[in-house]
């Protein structure tokens, strides 16, 4: 039963990921008073890409073809850590958040290498910017999670969710607020959303993620796009699980899980609305203002960790 639930959660995160992108796109369109594409559009994009041919630059080595596979596999593995409907996940009790964060880094590293392997100017440009953002985002991401881990005395995401479930919403401490703020900022950077990167642009002056994947086409591009969609869904799932898990099924009865699913969808939708509002309201930061933005996250998460020590006294 637990395993079935774990697999169901992974399937939700993996298969539902493109839908989240579609919904954000549609919401943004509505906010900008455009018609917008259907929310199912990302699925048809993936389907189309999967049936096109793979174009490889003449200078590319095996890394170019291997990178999308690794990125995709790593992001699917990340979903195995995240509890969605109940406080359990396939790698829930055994895998800790460090392993999860490093798996995310795994994908990113190979994506950057794939970008450089194309041998064009844009790949290197994108890779260069991506490693800047990711090396600065790593510290606040881990520190934010450390603060929550100390607070809940558990290093697994499932344990953190379980601990938060036992608390009342109004008992939530400043540590959680600070950690949430830090992780929300990091989440924007990690998923390449608006103040850090613009997912809809192909302008060489600004692009980060799109620059790296510029040489990819066909199934390879489909895998990369799907993987980054999964990353978005996984990180949203992570934020919900450790900061607002209320509504998760306690007993794994079909009815409880159905209810949990409804609550989860509502919470996800709320986050997507927030994301769409942020992306419509805020302009993209200048490249060299991004470190300051992430520095704020690092400062907040440091504060959260310091608070955990002070609150124990």
């Amino acid at each position, binding site marked *: 039963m637990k395993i079935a639930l774990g697999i169901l959660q992974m399937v939700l995160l993996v298969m539902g990921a493109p839908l989240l992108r579609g919904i954000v796109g549609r919401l943004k369109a509505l906010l900008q008073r455009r018609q917008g594409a259907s929310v199912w559009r990302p699925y048809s994009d993936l389907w189309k890409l*999967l049936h096109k041919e793979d174009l*490889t630059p003449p200078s590319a080595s095996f890394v170019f073809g291997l990178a999308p596979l690794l990125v995709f596999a790593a992001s699917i593995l990340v979903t195995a850590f995240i509890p969605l409907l109940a406080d359990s996940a396939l790698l829930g009790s055994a895998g800790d958040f460090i392993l999860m964060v490093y798996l995310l880094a795994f994908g990113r590293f190979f994506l950057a290498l794939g970008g*450089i392997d194309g041998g064009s100017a844009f790949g*290197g440009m994108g890779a260069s910017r991506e490693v800047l953002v990711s090396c600065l985002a790593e510290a606040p991401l881990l520190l934010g999670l450390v603060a929550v881990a100390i607070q809940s005395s558990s290093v697994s995401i499932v344990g953190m969710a379980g601990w938060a479930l036992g608390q009342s919403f109004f008992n939530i401490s400043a540590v959680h607020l600070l950690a949430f703020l830090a992780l929300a900022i990091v989440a924007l950077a990690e998923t390449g959303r608006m103040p850090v990167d613009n997912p809809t642009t192909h302008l060489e002056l600004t692009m980060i993620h799109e620059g790296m994947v510029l040489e990819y086409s066909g199934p390879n591009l489909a895998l990369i796009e799907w993987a980054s969609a999964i990353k978005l869904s996984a990180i949203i799932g992570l934020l919900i699980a450790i900061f607002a898990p209320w509504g998760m099924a306690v007993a794994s009865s079909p009815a409880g899980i159905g209810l949990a699913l409804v609550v989860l969808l509502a919470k996800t939708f709320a986050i997507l609305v927030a994301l769409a509002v942020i992306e419509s309201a805020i302009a993209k930061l200048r490249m060299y203002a991004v470190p300051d933005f992430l520095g704020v996250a690092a400062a907040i998460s440091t504060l959260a960790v310091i608070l955990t020590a002070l609150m124990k006294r």
Partner: protein
Amino acid sequence: MRVLECPLRLINFVGRFSPPVFVQTEIAAAKRCLTRASLLLATMFSVAISTGCNAGDRGLLNSEVRRLDPSVLAPFPFTFSLDRLGLFFLVLILAVALPVLIFSVSYVSRHYTPARQKWLWALLLLFIASMVGVVAASSGFAFLVAWEIMSLTSAGLILLEGSSGERRHNLFIYLLMTHAGTAAVIASFLVFLPHSHTLDFTALRAAGATLPHGARIALFLLAFVGFGTKAGIIPLHLWLPRAHPIAPSPVSALMSGVMLKIAVYGFVRFAFDFLPGGPAWFGYLVLIAGAVSGLLGVLYALAVHDLKRLLAYSSIENIGIIYMGLGAALIFTAHDARTWAALALAGALVHSLNHALFKSLLFLGSGAIADSTHTVDLEKLGGLQRRMPVTGSVFLIGCCSIMGLPLFNGFIGEWMILRSFIGGSTLVNTNAQLVLPLMVGVLALIGGLAAACFVRVYGVAFLGRPRSAEAENAHASPRAMRVGTVMLASACMAMGVWPGIFLRPIVSLAQSLVRAADAPPETLMISHVIPWVAAAFILLLGGTALLKRVKRQARTWACGLPGLTSRMQYTSNSITKPVRFVFARVYKADRTLQMLPEDRPYFPASISYHSERTTSYERSLYRPFVDGVMAAANQLRRLQTGNIQVYLLYIVLTLVLLLLYLRFAG
């Protein structure tokens, strides 16, 4: 300055006359060398394995396992024996030495004249044997003799590569600093002497428990400085980025991979074995020194584009990570949280082993690059993956390991250290509760920067288009060179995928060193989870690879230009420019950029750029020190009048003072 010139002259002398000593037919001699090398290796391995089995059976730290006692040769106790700590480092040495020697078989014969080859083999084997001697020594005298042979043979090996003026200068700095470090190590042994009366390790261990507080502090600080110099802790690292890149590649691999670990061994021996327990600030000192070395080491690595120099800086970074683990272990021991201490110490030891494997792999890889393209300048490389597929793949594995990606061995050690930092929150002491969890952020930043650094190294050297004709015409390495690197790479992967195979003995070693009753449960967890994750990963990878697809090669669109050239790619410098821009403060000390006129920065009439060749450490730390020593020496010169009556007066005065001392103090 006369005195300073002496070692230089000596080096010069040896460098000039050493190579043509033997004159023999080349092939026969080379074969004989090889036979001897393999014989020696076989002996070392059989000794290691037999002692290893014995140690494993008895499972004791403090009991002598095999004792070799050539004390007749010396007036001091001169004994060798292996305990578990020594055994661990012996395994580390031999695990790296074997692939390196295999690599050298073809590397050496391709790069050196037959006469030099003989010197190289002799010194290389002596170098390895001396490191074995250091970890097997069980008395201070034997330790120091082996330690000194280790320093000198490595210097000799550097000299074999060439003896131009600049190389001799770098070598001089290496010799000078390594001997300053040795002096501190000798001093730390001497601090023991009044309390232990002999330099035998058993006596030192017994004396360590009852040492007075002041002696304990002096001992710890001396050991920290002495071994820290050899390990390359910033700011004692000055020699490391100078000496490691100029050695022959197999020797660089041994120096970075193994010799630095010997220094770690010495420090662990002193800080954990001889001096059980100490104030918590010992730990904070080591922790902060490690954090500074880690952060600055990787930042400097980002700024250089000589591959071997970059790897040397990255060694400083990894030693920093190891010292962070050791520092955490000391803090935990001071607060009597021994299970956590065992985890932190085991993490440091595991990272030592891992770093030995992947750093020697990367150095051997850079040797293969140099062999094929005659350069290790990243700006001249590119596209090597297609031209040297085996070297490229093993180098990629090395890069993944050094960044600590899961499923590669580098992850295991970093993970254990990170977990022990989080464990710091369970202590009752507020300082530790604050500092240790925050170190997670520092280590994460180091890891992120290392990722940036090695994305650049692998991406620029092996991917994309070649940036020079040499890289364009690169060829695959000879078989022995490939075999050596493949061995190391497979060890990295095997340990990363199945950490259970090596984790248990290391954890129990760490447990006995910090006297912890229980094994940290975290290590069990990681060795259970990682194989499953690896299996799932491979399954997913295989599943995705089955995807049906049509492949076609197509030229990249060059924005309307006739075609892409290698000059349109990002260079090694430009890839890390954003990171260096963010951390500009670190590099600022050594370079100045001036725009004229100053009030119009965007429309400069002239730009002047100036960068210092000496680092800021030399200018602001070492230079004043050396100047001070010279000034003091000049003052002391006044004593030397050259008048014999004055010297007689000195003798009489000394005699009187000594007599007075005996009368009143003795």
